[in-house]
């Protein structure tokens, strides 16, 4: 068996970035697209300060979260562990980008040139057009590895079959080889050195090892005292930064999808109660459609959209698409036929769609604010709450729905309360489990606003509506609108403002000269 892995000796790396340059040249990536780069990490407080350099890039994981989420099956894993991307299948949804906790994936929509807009003669063959609008990342120079295997030479030993970054390393810090061969270069180095893998707790099984001292050297300092506080560390490019792959268009999908699914459920319930609600059902369908249209504007290869259906075995995005198709097909049939059964089936499909949306976020391992399991009930309850808010407003303004107003108001109050509880649990979970400091700052700042307009104000308005029948209609519209708007604000914040990525961390600082390896470093994180 073969398992290709890479090793970076933190004691040897000098941070010269030669590997970065070699990778940029060998793979002809666009400016600023660095499949391999070296982090410059300073830790400690003057005068007790350490500076370390750590090469990073795709970790070619045993359990690649990027592959699991990929809806098109463009991301695959070879039997030898190398994770590949089929540029012809990829739709450019960037789900893998937010799923990767190593920030190793890029999406380039237009070719870039070294001197800005001017294309030099040497750039007549710029970015591979097949790589535009799709995900790209380090391939472990798979073409060189394949070439070497074809020639019968050993990747990692013969430079012709070795990744460009390893070949170029001036300090002999980078190594490549077969982990399954006990006599390989990498197996020997791993036996001789203490080592760790980055973010090992996330269960990805990275194929990238960091050496941090001789195995027979002093025992490394325990990891119990991580240096994590902002301000004590120069951490640009190391601490988590706000993801930019999914913007308001992606957020709109969650906003329209949640509100639409919730609204259709209540419309179906009204239908079951014998109250005609076709217009509301159509509005619900339109909301979901608008959300999907928005996210369609974000993907890099929209004409390949059918590829989103290729990975139902694992990808929640594929499942969302299938649920969405069922939702639209059943919903339109329900409105056309007026069948209560069809309405009920559509509502179930809508709930499935909403559940898939929640699971989409939960599967994004690269974004700590999303991968917390409590995001699932939060997204579902807020979707229902948004739908209930819209329904209540509609129950005031659309006379046939008038009989549902009291029940809708009471239901909204209950849902808002449940959402408030779930939100608190979600926030507590992030606070206690560890999250990027910036994420917590954003969510803490949002917390009071959300409780005020998403919970307190709607409940007070609904209570007031019950107590003052004369103004009840207006108060119900205000309560519903408030609950709905708070839900949309929550999603906008979650997707576009609180979505700081994982950042980078070292389980141990390297030995410097002699002595023990240092403690762990995880800049930009609030740890418990």
């Amino acid at each position: 068996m073969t398992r290709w892995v890479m090793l970076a000796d933190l004691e040897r790396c000098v941070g010269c970035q030669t590997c970065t340059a070699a990778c940029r040249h060998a793979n002809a990536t666009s400016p600023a697209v660095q499949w391999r780069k070296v982090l410059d990490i300073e830790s400690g407080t003057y005068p007790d300060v350490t500076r370390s350099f750590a090469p990073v890039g795709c970790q070619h994981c045993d359990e690649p979260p990027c592959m699991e989420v990929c809806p098109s099956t463009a991301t695959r894993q070879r039997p030898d562990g190398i994770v590949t991307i089929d540029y012809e299948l990829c739709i450019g949804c960037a789900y893998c980008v937010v799923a990767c906790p190593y920030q190793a994936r890029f999406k380039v929509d237009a070719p870039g040139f070294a001197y800005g807009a001017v294309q030099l003669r040497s750039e007549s063959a710029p970015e591979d057009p097949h790589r535009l609008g799709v995900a790209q990342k380090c391939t472990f120079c798979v073409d060189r590895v394949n070439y070497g295997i074809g020639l019968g030479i050993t990747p990692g030993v013969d430079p012709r079959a070795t990744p460009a970054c390893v070949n170029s390393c001036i300090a002999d810090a980078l190594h490549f080889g077969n982990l399954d061969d006990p006599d390989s270069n990498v197996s020997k180095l791993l036996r001789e050195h203490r080592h760790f893998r980055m973010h090992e707790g996330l269960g990805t099984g990275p194929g990238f090892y960091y050496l941090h001292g001789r195995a027979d050297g002093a025992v490394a300092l325990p990891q119990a005292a991580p240096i994590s506080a902002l301000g004590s560390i120069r951490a640009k490019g190391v601490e988590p930064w706000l993801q930019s792959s999914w913007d308001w268009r992606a957020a709109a999908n969650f906003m329209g999808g949640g509100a639409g699914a919730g609204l259709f459920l209540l419309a179906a319930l009204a239908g079951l109660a014998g109250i005609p609600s076709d217009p509301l059902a159509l509005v619900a369908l339109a909301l979901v459609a608008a959300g999907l249209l928005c996210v369609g504007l974000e993907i890099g290869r929209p004409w390949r959209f059918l590829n989103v259906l290729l990975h139902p075995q694992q990808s929640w995005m594929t499942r969302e698409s299938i649920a969405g198709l069922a939702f639209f097909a059943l919903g339109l049939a329900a409105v056309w036929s007026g069948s209560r059964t069809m309405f009920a089936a559509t509502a179930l499909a809508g709930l499935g769609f909403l559940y898939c949306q929640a699971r989409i976020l939960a599967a994004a391992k690269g974004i700590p604010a999303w991968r917390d399991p409590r995001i699932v009930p939060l997204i579902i309850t807020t979707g229902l709450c948004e739908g209930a808010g819209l329904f209540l407003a509609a129950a005031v303004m659309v006379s046939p729905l008038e009989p549902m107003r009291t029940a809708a108001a009471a239901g909204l109050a209950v849902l808002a309360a449940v959402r408030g509880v779930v939100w608190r649990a979600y926030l507590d979970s992030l606070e206690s489990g560890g999250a990027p400091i910036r994420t917590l700052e954003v969510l803490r700042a949002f917390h009071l606003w959300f409780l005020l307009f998403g919970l307190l104000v709607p409940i007070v308005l609904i209570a007031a509506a019950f107590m003052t029948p004369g103004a009840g209609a207006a108060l119900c519209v205000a309560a519903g609108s408030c609950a709905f708007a708070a839900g949309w604000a929550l999603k906008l914040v979650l997707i576009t403002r609180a979505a700081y990525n994982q950042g980078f961390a070292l389980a141990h600082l390297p030995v410097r000269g002699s002595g023990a390896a240092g403690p762990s470093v995880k800049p930009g994180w609030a740890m418990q």
Partner: protein
Amino acid sequence: MKPGPDGFMEYPMNPTGKNEWMARPQVRSAHRTLVPLVANSPWSQALGPTHLAWMMQSEPLAALPAASPPDVWIVYRTNPAISFWDTETLGAAMARFPFVVCFAYTRDETNHVADVLLPDCTDLEGLQLLRIGGTKYVEQFWDYQGFALRDPAVPPQGEARDFTWIATELAKRTGLIEQYNQAINRGAAGVRLFGANYDFSLDPAKAHGVETVWNAVCRAASAELTDGVESDGLEYYRGHGFRVKSFPRLHWYLYPKLVSAGLRFEQPYQERLFRIGKELGRRLHEHGIDWWDRQLEEYEALPHWRDLAALWEGALARHFHVAIEDYPFWLITARSMQYAWGGNAGIPLIRELSENVAGHGGIVMNAAAAARLGISDGDLVEVRSPLNHTRGRAVLCQGIRPDTLLMIGQFDHWATPVAKDFDAPSMNALMPMLLELTDATGSSADLVKVNVTPLRTS
């Protein structure tokens, strides 16, 4: 390594004896007159007090001949207009030079004043055989030594010509072709073209093409590596890229050689240094030169500790008539691994890579010291020395002394493409050239006292 007459390793110091000392310098840096330690190789001027040559352009030194500007100043791959101390004074001196010729592959701050530009190839376009390996003048230790070919990867762009073509044309047009060829035969291109059992010398009377010159150099290199057994030329290197022979690890170090030759160690008591210092002092005083007396104090057999901080502060205070307490920070520089000597400052990829390494493009400052001054990371600040001032963005970190600022590299470009848009500060404009701060070897340090003022927050 050769044994000297006094039992130490021989070192070709510039003579200080009464009848051998060079009282009248032949070059503007006066290295043979003032600095015995830098010897007299082609590299010695750069090792000696280079800045004296620039200082004397505006202020003559007593008992030395007044320094005239050069009739023709030829510049090859150097950019002193931004890379030397006190760039303002230096630029003014350059402006007075009557005729400036610059080899150039891009516009820069020095060739901006050139009367003639010689369009030089870039390293990807030109041909050259380079020595590799060994331990002399390189920082790495190599198991091999030999030669590598830099073969053109792309044809020259525009009017660019190979350096060898330009140099040969200059020699031909100035009537120096014979001396030019003889210099190449003696090893001016990196390899002597003849040896005990080989001779690939160029015909001195003829102007030779680029490939002819380098083919001869390649053949001599092959012969040098094989004691004349092989004589493969340019085509061999084009096919193989390089040729090396083993370099024994024992040769990495001087110690075994000293032991085998039975030589005395010169430390800790540096008797020879003490002696030449005394001799140099007598020669200088005999000729009325007393402005080098502080440097003469450094010729000690057993060096004493000196308060260098006080030396610096005192010199700056006296020269600029300032209260040195008003300049509480030491400003230093460091070479960037990505930019090396700075010749690649116009390459966007290098800029991109350097951004992965903290400190490029700004002023590195201790976070606590910055907080005391109300400076946050990324704030625009002004840094002022007694000589001049500059501005840049604060880059805060912990790993620097609270009383020290760091400006990496020398990025005061205003003409070089790409680099002129860096908006990165350089300490060069802030560094005075002072005789008082010149040491006995003719060097000084990239070190000056400054203050910092926040201009606006980021």
